[in-house]
């Protein structure tokens, strides 16, 4: 292995407007936005002369959404009506409950449309480093819900991270003595994905949980 190199000592640029700098900073704190895209957005928002430009529209939409949107008191989904559409629907199977970490995790299930059960949002994962302990998560409310709805199957759909795994293990331990089937989402090769590009960890899991034809 050999290397050849280039070293470049550049000079960083700064805005001449502190207000613009503040806007860029607050945009770049949003998830998924780097400083570069934040700068592009900021310049787009402030670069209009008319009174009802994209900036005014955005401000109004944010204010409105902040007022209207709430979390379902039963499952934790994002909703304007409480309880939410899914919890109210007679056609959803209340004996199946899918445990997710955040309200956003419900969206892919609903988009796919195959799942007929209900949800329960934990609102986080066990993580002492972030100050999240068992007593901070709604396990008690979940226990009550299991009882009330006569839940028969609990499907754990948490992140595949040490926090997700540990939270799953905790749930398993917590409800071990209930007459309840605990299942977990399988992990493996994405559909349409070429095998050659699957990372080693995913491949190992897919192999571990391989099934017979």
């Amino acid at each position, binding site marked *: 292995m050999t*290397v050849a190199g280039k070293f470049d000592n550049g000079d960083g640029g700064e805005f001449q407007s502190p207000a613009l700098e503040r806007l860029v900073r607050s945009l770049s704190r949003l998830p998924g936005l780097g400083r570069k895209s934040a700068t592009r957005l900021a310049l787009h928002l402030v670069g209009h002369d008319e009174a009802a430009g994209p900036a005014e529209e955005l401000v109004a939409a944010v204010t409105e959404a902040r007022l209207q949107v709430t979390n379902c008191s039963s499952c934790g989904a994002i909703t304007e009506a409480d309880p939410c559409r899914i919890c109210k629907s007679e056609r959803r199977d209340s004996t199946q409950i899918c445990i997710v970490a955040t309200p956003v995790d419900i969206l892919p299930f609903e988009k796919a449309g195959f799942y007929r059960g209900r949800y329960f949002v934990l609102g986080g994962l066990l993580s002492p480093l972030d100050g999240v302990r068992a007593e901070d998560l709604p396990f008690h409310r979940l226990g009550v819900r299991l009882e009330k709805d006569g839940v028969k199957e609990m499907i754990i759909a948490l992140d595949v991270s040490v926090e997700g795994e540990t939270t799953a*293990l905790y749930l398993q331990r917590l409800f071990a003595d209930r007459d309840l089937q605990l299942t977990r989402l399988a992990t493996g090769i994405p559909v349409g994905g070429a095998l050659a590009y699957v990372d080693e960890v995913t491949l190992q899991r897919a192999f571990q949980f391989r099934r017979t034809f």
Partner: protein
Amino acid sequence: MDLTFSPRVNLVLGRNGEGKTNFLEALNFLALGRSHRGSKPDEMINFDKETLHVTLEVEEESGSVLTCEFGLDRSGGRRFRVDGEAIRRRADLVGRLVTVFFNPDSIRLVRGAPQRRRHFTDHGLSEFDPLFLSHLTALQRVIRQKTGLLRDHKKGLASPPETRRELESWNKELAVHAAEVCAGRQEYACLLTPYSHGTHKTLTDNDLQLGFRYCPNLECVKSRQKNDPEKPFAKEGLAADIFQEIDYIMESEIQRGRPRIGPQLDDFEVRLDGVDLRVYGSQGEIRTATIALILARSDVLYQKRQIRPVLFFDDIFSELDRHRAHRLQEMSSRHHQVFVATARADDIADWRPEEMKAWNVQGGGFTEADNEPPY
């Protein structure tokens, strides 16, 4: 500044404090995702500049070329790209550009705290075993979480029954990753030992057996190793055994407020003909053993991935006797691209490798030196 290095030997000459080490540090930054000596980005950027941007063309033995880049800015921002693709996790950088760094501090591999030897093993194995790396990363994360939980509890921030249930869950997750990490460490020590014997022999001309042996902290791992200490052991059922062992001492961990056993306390023995060099090694023995082990690590890597790491020697030849220094120079430049930083041209005076390039460093600036001693 655009530099074309020799594919073989590059000498970096200059008085101390003129920027030799900074230069090696910048070249190494891409291999580690951080500074090898813990400098902050702010300390790596020229005092009158805002950013540092380094692009390296890395050519592998197979002939494929990777473009590796990193950028630093004073506010602590760091960006890495490999072939134009942004690298977000440091784990994804491991094994792309592979380097080995020697400096006077390297002897702490033998003499220093166990953490040094764990890191040496873990890094060496991660370079060709990404699964090991992912288990190691997960294990370290679980241990930090568990430590946080025990600390919270000690401070009275948690109720006892919940802490026990949580702790049990963390221990279960810990055991899954610990089993993989312990088995990997044993495997790596077994792989490394024959090579370290070989490199030690070439370096010193004596036939003493240099061995690197895994000393696990967990009893259940020790007992698996006992049957045949020179061979890897089976992983079946190990996670369950580890969980049991750790779960058994839960109360004492709760009492102490920190984890008491686990792979985070593993160590490795460095033995020269049965003598534990960590305790009984002379300065000279430790130095050659360190170099032999580090070179053996790159032999293992070559066996696994057909890659020869780039070697960096920062001011180490002055500490070796002439004969050994010469051996090391010959050994390293035979297969590797080498960067040697030194303040004393004497240290490399009798060395005339082919395709040598020399650079003078002064006040952070670079000039190509005449390719003839005394530089």
